[in-house]
């Protein structure tokens, strides 16, 4: 391929992808999702949390992955609001995470008649990594101390009776990274507190060994996971709206791979491309 053709082929590919994505964002198409077992398991785990315990929604994501982690966070927060489960937003990986979770929860709470401090709380971003999580497990008020508005967390009614990790019914880690490992090693591994994982699409496969070993109760994989959850919850949010656009982008990528291989085989037949390289593709 010459330099000119490479230059133009790139631009054509970008344009095709942009059109394929934008067209399905502008035209309303109803997406119907098959709800996978890992997603349903998270739903059941939230439903099973007793009223005496708190759910921790760990927002370990930044604006870069808002396209996937945003709808996941919203679907999970809506479920907690709808089911009347007490929850705390928390962050220990990215400083922006709890603020983004706060914005989502504030936007949704009125619809369910919920209030900050009484039904939910935001513990904010806490630095310290693994040592902090280990201390947190044994003494939540002593480690977190103040919420995002710098009020002592013990002064919030939602925190009544919440002292250690034994008072936590479920930890949901929402992240584009493998921060799940910290929860599995130091929280599930020691205290057997149920852990759920909502990750970006590319991180999904890495969660399956944990899920298969019952170290985590369920997995939400990327935007598709969020769409499955929205379907379970019975509302059409951002994820279900964006799924047709994602489908069409996937179709373009598949078409490009097929086209690329056709061109490659044609070039090979003409003797312009190498036959086989060691190590596959």
């Amino acid at each position, binding site marked *: 391929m010459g330099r000119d053709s490479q230059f133009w082929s790139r631009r054509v590919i970008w344009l095709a992808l942009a059109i394929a*994505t934008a067209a399905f964002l502008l035209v309303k198409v109803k997406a119907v999702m098959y709800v996978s077992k890992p997603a349903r398991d998270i739903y059941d785990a939230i439903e099973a949390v007793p009223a005496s315990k708190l759910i921790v929604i760990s927002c370990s994501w930044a*604006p870069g992955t808002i396209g996937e982690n945003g709808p996941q966070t919203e679907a999970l927060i809506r479920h907690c609001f709808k089911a009347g489960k007490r929850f705390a937003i928390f962050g220990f990986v990215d400083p922006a995470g709890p603020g983004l979770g706060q914005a989502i929860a504030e936007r949704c709470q009125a619809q369910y008649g919920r209030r900050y401090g009484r039904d939910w709380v935001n513990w904010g971003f806490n*630095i310290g990594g693994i*040592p902090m999580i280990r201390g947190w497990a044994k*003494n939540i008020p002593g480690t977190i101390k103040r919420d995002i508005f710098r009020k002592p967390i013990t002064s919030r009614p939602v925190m009544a009776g919440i002292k250690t990790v034994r008072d936590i019914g479920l930890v949901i880690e929402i992240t584009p990274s493998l921060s799940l490992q910290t929860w599995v090693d130091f929280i599930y591994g020691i205290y057997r507190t149920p852990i759920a994982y909502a990750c970006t699409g590319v991180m999904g496969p890495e969660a399956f060994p944990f899920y298969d070993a019952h170290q985590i109760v369920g997995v939400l*994989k990327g935007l598709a996971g969020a769409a499955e959850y929205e379907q379970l919850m019975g509302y059409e949010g951002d994820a279900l709206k964006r799924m047709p656009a994602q489908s069409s982008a996937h179709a*373009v990528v598949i078409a*490009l791979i097929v086209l690329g291989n056709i061109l490659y085989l044609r070039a090979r037949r003409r003797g312009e491309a190498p036959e086989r*390289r060691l190590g596959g593709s």
Partner: protein
Amino acid sequence: MRTRKWTIVVTIYVMGGLIGAVAWWALVQALSPIFRPVEGGAFYGAVSASVLLWAAVMYLLHRLPASVKKRVVVFMTFVAGLFYTLEFYLPEKSAIFFWRPSHTNPFTPMLDPVGAATSVIFGFTFFLGAFSLSLVHGKHIAARRPGYYNSIAFFVAFAAMAAFGLWQAYAPKAILVHDHWGLRNLSVRQVYDYLFISTYVPLGAALFSVLAFYMATAAFRAFRVRSAEAGFMMVAAFICMLGQVPLGMWVTHHLPMTGPLSHLRTEAIANWILGVFSMAGLRAVGFGILVGGLAMSLRLWLNLERGAFFEQEL
């Protein structure tokens, strides 16, 4: 000779570690009265005293000869690692802690102050990051290097986010503009929201979404079926991609949701590939990473690591 040398090394480590751990425990017990929340003037006094103490300790450390500095780092690393190891592996409650009335692990109550100290150290890493970025961009501007205006943009963005972030945190109801320039009751919180929610969030998302365009180009140019393995990988990738989106689910939607035929649905095959083949490979990789990580941790903890930093003069 070699065995004797190792016996001496291990004995020094064990004895030094135990003495260090006991000394640390005694130190924390002695200092525990000062690990109490303070408010108002006492708080600022404590912060000032801590900064002065820290400056004095850093000055003294810098005055030490390089070989002693290295030993201090090695000792601190070992004692810190030993503390968490002992706290983790020793039981929560046992008769071996006979000198404690509750027979509980004596290291557990120290998790809080040690965790607070760790958080402070982590806080310094943020400061170090900001300092390093400022230094790099400051040099760009001073030398008028090509694209130096991007460095100016960095300083403007950094200052704006830091100023409005702190301002809205400490005075959330403060009004920035009462009635000027066509703006009425513009609050600090609104400006911060504009900077964070309306600027930083979309910019971050846009930056990440650019990846999709590069992935599409890479798929066209690099994903070639040059061998049978590559062919298998491509088929698996197709099924997994289709299994995640409604388009793929629609392809096999006429198949029942339950019963033997349901296993032929795209999403079922995709989940099977992820849950069986992919998982086996990931487990193997995971084992390798964790064993390597364990070995690396031990090498760092026991000062066995050799390399660019570890052999460098401090």
